[in-house]
């Protein structure tokens, strides 16, 4: 019965979260198509979908402040990440200030409400990353080069070592980083407000671009910073562990915070 209540809450979040965010999700789909299309045009049509995805997810080389070196942000990478975080930014708190108050009274369990929102974030982020891959798969299929295509030239073109063994990391690492960041921003939104939560995500991602360090989780979402793809990169396992710890701490920390949280408009 208890699990049933949680599943009903999650069902509510999926339906209402989707309906209240449909415009953002639709715009996100167009954004993905645009990003994938532009990347294909930019790289040329002789590559497979994996190469295009690698270009989108590669991020930036380590910035070394010296003489004439300029710090530049990887715009496409940043837009993609910030958009996904934007989608999951407002729904939990808007719900809590509005209809969610009724939901809370009916479910009579603050923790379950929070866990359901966390699961909604995980599901939405996973769904969006999947859509990115599907869009790229579809576009590269339409271009006639297939999904894998030629990956041998990735080293020269993108500075990345891509092979069939590390393709899974291209999916997994951005996913765990975005889930962890989504949960961090939700916890901050609960403690402060959604705007500050989102601003924290922006700062974390920009700081990750500026500093190559295993402690800033944005680094694990840039293929150019990871050991399977580049010589001297950060080990993947540390990213998986760090993101898991951050995610679990926010998940459980939110449950403690919501228990003492005054729900006032």
């Amino acid at each position, binding site marked *: 019965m208890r699990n049933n209540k949680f599943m009903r809450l999650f069902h509510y979040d999926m339906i209402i979260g989707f309906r209240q965010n449909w415009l953002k999700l639709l715009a996100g789909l167009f954004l993905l198509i645009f990003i994938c299309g532009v990347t294909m045009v930019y790289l040329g049509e002789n590559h497979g979908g994996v190469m295009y995805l690698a270009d989108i997810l590669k991020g930036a080389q380590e910035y070394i402040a010296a003489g004439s070196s300029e710090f530049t942000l990887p715009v496409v990478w940043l837009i993609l990440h910030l958009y996904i975080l934007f989608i999951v930014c407002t729904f939990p708190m808007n719900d809590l*200030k509005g209809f969610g108050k*009724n939901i809370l009274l009916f479910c*009579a*369990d603050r923790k379950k409400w929070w866990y359901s929102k966390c699961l909604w974030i995980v599901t939405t982020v996973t769904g969006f990353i999947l859509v990115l891959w599907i869009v790229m798969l579809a576009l590269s299929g339409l271009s006639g080069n297939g999904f894998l295509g030629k990956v041998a030239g990735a080293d020269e073109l993108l500075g990345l070592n891509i092979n069939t063994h590390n393709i899974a990391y291209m999916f997994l690492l951005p996913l765990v980083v975005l889930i962890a960041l989504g949960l961090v921003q939700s916890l901050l939104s609960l403690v402060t407000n959604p705007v500050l939560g989102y601003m924290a995500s922006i700062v974390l991602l920009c700081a990750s671009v500026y500093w190559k360090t295993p402690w800033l989780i944005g680094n694990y979402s840039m293929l150019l910073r990871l050991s399977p793809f580049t010589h001297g990169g950060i080990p993947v396992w540390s990213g998986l562990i760090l993101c898991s710890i951050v995610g679990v701490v926010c998940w459980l920390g939110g449950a403690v915070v919501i*228990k003492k949280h005054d729900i006032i408009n």
Partner: protein
Amino acid sequence: MNIKINHLSKVIKGVTVLDDINLELTSGKIYGLRGKNGSGKTMLMRLLCGLILPSKGSIEIDGEVMGKDISFPRSVGALIENPSFLMEYSGFENLRILASIKGEIDDQQISNTLSAVGLDPNDKRHYRKYSLGMKQRLGIACAVMESPELIILDEPINALDEKGVELVKHIMLALRDKDALIVVACHDAEELEYLSDEVFNLAEGKLQYGKAPI
């Protein structure tokens, strides 16, 4: 149901909105809360339904301490300030979504509740197109549809016409007769005195003892 409020205080951003409230409430009665704007009526109601937690003191419901043993009363329905519903759904759909959380009542019971407050269960209009009075009626329907043991109504007759007021009064008295504990705040002193078994006055966050019996 038995509610004991012990030395309850609430401080928000350094302002004491409720100060050392002591009360005992029991089932089968309607308790009226009277007070000027800002006297703390709504805060006390929020505390009773578990949306906010006391800064000091406690609320015990049937021996369970709120915020410690339970987050919310085990059986509560509430209308606090303006009702919040999903704009793009009809009144019936809104209530069905809420009822689906516990799964205790079916569509027929939802329809009956809507009819009882004077709303058409088959009205397909979205909530955003509802008039103020209809929104208020839906809020009351939401609070009472599962026949909770504790019902908290903040200004339930706001925006209602005469017929609506009569309906609400009838519903409240019927629920009291079914042993519900009802706490109601209302600006209309006459209506409050007519409905309530006991009326409490709140002024600047303090309870004015010396109840006004009916």
